[in-house]
């Protein structure tokens, strides 16, 4: 008897791509993972999940300080992981405005234009500083992903491209994140693993040598000003060489993952369906961490301001950015909290995924530090004070979780970054706008 009238409980479209496993014809197995498990402690990972348009106090603020606190409406989906989280309040972003706030999220410094050029300086972001240390044994030092491509034009005097990333690999190099799930997948798993990849890497290396030779010749012929512009090019050559070297001569690893996931290559292009896109990118992050292809990663839900519209969420009636400027009208505020609740719900699925991956002495979540939040509080006035931040994961024992830490009012964002650097054993005297640590986190 057909039970077609049993109503499907799903409230929004699930793309077909996710349920269709593509034949893994082209996927080579990870050599490192196939090798017998090497003893060693699982490394600590650092992940940043970024939402650009803020959270309103009415939906975000938790009740209570210390170990006894109640989750807010927006954080409710993360109830099962309350014991793994540290909510932080009273931390201030030094930037002011969408783009500077976004650029400062991991750099603790709003970007400044270098005179006479179109280059901006914000300082190296904390994830890249960490990647310098954590990325030595992994193929990819830092996996930067986003759900929206870089913006065009200008806003508030800054080029939108400067607000399209939270990661800076050098003081003046904003790193544009990857938006295509398939390209991200290929960069992680297809190009660098297996005998075919080794052959390709050898060829690529000789091309790189040729390219460097050509560039050295040309370098002599250009003006001094133009020579500066080639600095980043040379830096890229070095980065690719390092990666190729790791493919040809995989580094000695102090630790190997105990289990191996199925690797399913996502379809090409950028999914039309935003929830599906988010799901795929969360999966990329999880797979990359699981297979120890990288130990540092990030995902941006949107670029600063963002033009994304979230009409698939029931009750939503506008663009993400538009709704964040709620003007304190009750119905708009409700939509603002509702969309943020949706983000938190999706994020909870990611945390659950990390929690479900066993790494012997604990889960992947136990061995990670995941930073979730936004560069501003109430998006209506781009409030840079008391920005919404939560840490998830015990960081391999480095963090005492299950608490709400209310820092001293006006604690600079750089202090959080310094504290994280300290936890990971990276030396730094100052970072961005701070020279001190957050003592309660230590």
């Amino acid at each position: 008897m057909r039970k077609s009238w049993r109503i499907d409980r799903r409230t929004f479209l699930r793309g077909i791509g996710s349920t269709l496993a593509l034949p893994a014809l082209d996927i080579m197995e990870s050599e490192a993972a196939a090798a017998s498990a090497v003893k060693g402690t699982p490394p600590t990972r650092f992940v940043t999940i970024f939402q650009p348009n803020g959270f309103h106090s009415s939906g975000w603020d938790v009740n209570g300080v210390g170990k006894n606190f109640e989750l807010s409406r927006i954080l409710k989906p993360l109830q099962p992981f309350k014991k793994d989280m540290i909510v932080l309040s009273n931390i201030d972003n030094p930037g002011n405005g969408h783009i500077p706030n976004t650029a400062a999220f991991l750099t603790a410094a709003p970007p400044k234009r270098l005179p006479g050029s179109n280059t901006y300086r914000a300082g190296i972001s904390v994830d890249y500083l960490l990647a310098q240390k954590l990325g030595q044994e992994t193929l990819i030092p830092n996996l930067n992903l986003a759900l929206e491509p870089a913006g065009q034009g200008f806003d508030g005097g800054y080029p939108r491209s400067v607000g399209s990333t939270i990661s800076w690999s050098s003081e003046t190099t904003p790193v544009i994140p990857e938006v295509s799930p398939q390209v991200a997948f290929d960069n992680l798993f297809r190009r660098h693993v297996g005998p075919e990849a080794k052959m390709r890497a050898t060829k690529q290396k000789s091309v790189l040598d040729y390219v460097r030779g050509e560039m050295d010749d040309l370098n002599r012929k250009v003006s001094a000003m133009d020579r500066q512009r080639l600095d980043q090019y040379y830096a890229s050559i070095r980065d690719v060489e390092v990666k190729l070297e790791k493919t040809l001569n995989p580094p000695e690893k102090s630790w190997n993952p105990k289990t191996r996931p199925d690797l399913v290559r996502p379809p090409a292009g950028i999914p039309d369906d935003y929830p599906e896109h988010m799901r795929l990118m969360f999966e990329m992050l999880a797979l990359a961490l699981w297979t120890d292809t990288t130990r540092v990663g990030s995902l941006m839900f949107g670029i600063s301001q963002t033009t994304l519209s979230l009409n698939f969420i029931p009750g939503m009636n506008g663009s993400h950015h538009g709704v964040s400027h709620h003007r304190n009208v009750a119905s708009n505020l409700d939509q603002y909290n509702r969309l943020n609740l949706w983000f938190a719900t999706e994020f909870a699925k990611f945390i659950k995924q990390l929690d479900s991956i066993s790494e012997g002495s604990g889960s992947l979540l136990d061995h990670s530090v995941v930073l979730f939040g936004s560069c501003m509080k109430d998006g209506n006035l781009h409030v840079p004070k008391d920005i919404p931040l939560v840490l998830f994961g015990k960081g391999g024992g480095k963090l005492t979780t299950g608490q709400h830490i209310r820092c001293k009012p006006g604690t600079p964002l750089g202090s959080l970054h310094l504290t994280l650097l300290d936890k990971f054993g990276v030396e730094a005297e100052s970072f961005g706008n701070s020279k001190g640590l957050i003592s309660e986190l230590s």
Partner: protein
Amino acid sequence: MTCNFPCGILNATALLVLAGLCFGAPGELHGETGFEEKVVPLLAKYCYDCHDDLTTKGNLDLTPFLDPESVVKERKLWLRVLHQIKSQEMPPEKPFPAPDELATLVDEIDRAVNDVDWSSFRNPGHVPLARLSQLQYRNSIRDLLGIDFNAGVTLPRDPEGPSGFRNDRSSLLINGSYLEKYYAEAQRALDAIFYLKENPSPRIQTIRAEEFKVFRARIEKNGSSSVLVLATPSSTGSGVVVLPETGYYRITIHAGTKPYPLTGLNLYAGGNEVGSVIVEDPQMRDYTMTALMEKGSNLISLRTDVAALPLRNDYRVEFPVPQNYIGEALEIAEATAPKLKPLPHYSPAARKQLETANRTAFEIFEYYQLLKLLRENDAVSDDEKVRGEWLGRRTRFRQANMQLSALLKVPDEDVFARWTAETISPGFDEYMDFGNAYVEEARFKYFYKRPFSGEVVVSRIAFEGPIEPEAIEPQGLYSDLPDPGTAPPGDAEIRALIRKFSSRAFRRPIDETQLDRLFDFYATARGEGAGFYPALNDALSAALCSPEFLYRFDALDGPGDEIRLSSHQLAGRLANFLWASVPDAALLNAADEDSLTSDVGIAEQTERMRLSPKVRSFSESFMSEWLDFANLGGNIMPNIGRYPEFSRALAEDMKKETARFFEHIVREDRSLLELLESDYLLLNERMANYYGHPEPRKGSDFAIYEKHEDHFGGLLGMAGLMTATSPPTRTSPVKRGVWMLEKIFGEHLPPPPANVPELPPGTGERAGISLREELAKHREQKECAGCHDKIDNFGFVLENFDPIGKWRTSTPEVPVDSTVTLEDGKTYQNVVDFKSYLLEERRDDFLRNITEQMLSYALGRPLEFFDTPVVDEIAEQVRKKGYRPSVLLGEIAKSYPFNFQSNLPIE
């Protein structure tokens, strides 16, 4: 400098002016006395209060301007200042300057901005070293290889630079993941070319219906075969096809339609729309399209396409259900509604819950009867209330039964099973299916305003390829490659091939040592036993990764303050400007003969290139970035619920209309003023229908049409531009006004104050007043009026164009008032007489603006104050010679900044 003026005859004022010109040394404009002594104190008296470095009203700080040279360097700004002082807009309140003070200000500032000895500022400008833009990369690979593989699609999208164009050189750097991507891109394109040459007989891969996975669709058995049946808009059938190599494939879909004779079908590959067909025949037959597909596994999806179906505007939005139907349905329900009896083991609480469940079943049954009546009497109601009511009753029925099963401590299934089993035919399955189908159909009509799409039936989809695409560039590698079956060509022939390929790629003749290095790749691979195709692949991949291909080294170092570009460097620049690609053989020859450093030589090539179809890339990128409509159909989309006739395909055609119109003007050398007003239109079938043209012609290509209504013609009547300047649900006269001022007239508006919120949705409509009246209230505030008095009129005159560019004389609430009175006091009714204003009063502003934009595009940098005389001269030539694009392009190619590069350090 010598003074040639007969000073004795002239009057005193002229003498003063001439004295300044004659006796001022180069670099000094006239005596410092003029500006410093007279103007600065007046500015301090009347302007500094609001326009100093603390109170920078309108973002303007006048205090740094202490001499005429500083004024010249910010000439555009001071032209505005002059205008505002002259028209007495500024200062806006007391104290006002006395008449003689006003005269002094106007005279001296006018002198400072207009009586400029430009020779003292002569500077060709400096463009930084830049990589190829994404568009230039794609086209270069297309022309070098011979086939367009959309190379560079994995590269990050180019940001807009400060000039507003994506080819702005300051933003075009190589960092991060680019290098790896370039290598992968080169491999992909070369692998595809070599494979195609080696495998001229395409293979066919088929996905049969039974292999599809379905989502809201079904597979039906048809005797020994099966068919995929797609119905509602989101119903999808997906499958996987594994293709041997990247390339073009002929895709054949064997399909038919039932019951309606017209259904649209979209094909997606990996999430991107690859093509669509209209399935017209109930008989199964083949529908074909050609598309670029990737090597390896491709996820294919077929989905019905709502946008292909004709709109029906006669669907009633509110259709109250007739009372007698409601009564009749109630009667039937009271007589025959099914009920469940309590079973012996039911507790009292369960029995009570069962009563509730029975009540909800009654409501379901009653509504089922009602819907049946509506359907039988062909009175399908698309009233949202009917749908909402059904869904509500359905939910209550479910919830009541789920609560019952909770009380009984049994799975939900068991309770639902009773309903199915114990109701007499037709039973609950039938009630539910009927109701659900009914509301689905109603929702479709209500939301999409199209007939229910019926069903598309697909039996198989076949992929044949790789095949040769229709368009093959004759000078590309594909034509030059020796056939694979023949004996491997000798070293000399290979060297010649590599030389030709890379000289064109590097935009200059490759030197022997470079050639040796590339040939090395070939020789090494051959030495390791590779065939000559793979070996050649290695060499050419390396060439495509060379910085000389990826970067534009067209302004190398040299002695002196400025460098003259060589013929080869000019060839590269010209090809990037007009074709966004590499030079062709004829242009390279001209460069080899060093003829491009002469005016005649470069003008000749420019003229030849203007006539080539390759200017399409130039017209598409120039227009969409200048007029800011590139994001239409992507980030900018109208609300589909309100404007169901809008679709991505329509957006693409709208963009093409504007780009093709400009392309037509360029290639046919029509007057550029036709952009302001023309007596013809360039349309395809879809756009002709959209604009209600009485004689639309079949086909997707664009062709000349006679104008059928006065408000069409020129840029302002184009739907794409009107849509791109509107938010999703309404028009925005402010947005359009800003667009007109900045894009058409080339004025610069200061940014709005921080934190000015958007108007909330429904602005105007709720208060029952027009948008115009609402904005008028805002302009009553002084801080807002300053800018809005200038902006809003240019938007209001376009109010007859609704948010999707259709002509309207009223909105649902109020009639449209598009009468505007401009600064000069004249009144214009609507866009039709406004266009005559543009042609008569503003033609030279427009010409100057398009000249600046195009020069900026050609140079890849924003213009500076020292480019002013260049722009003046070019615009003057174009004006004199009939406003023709051939003149504009030629003058730009011959111009000082195009041919020279400044070598001085930048301040």
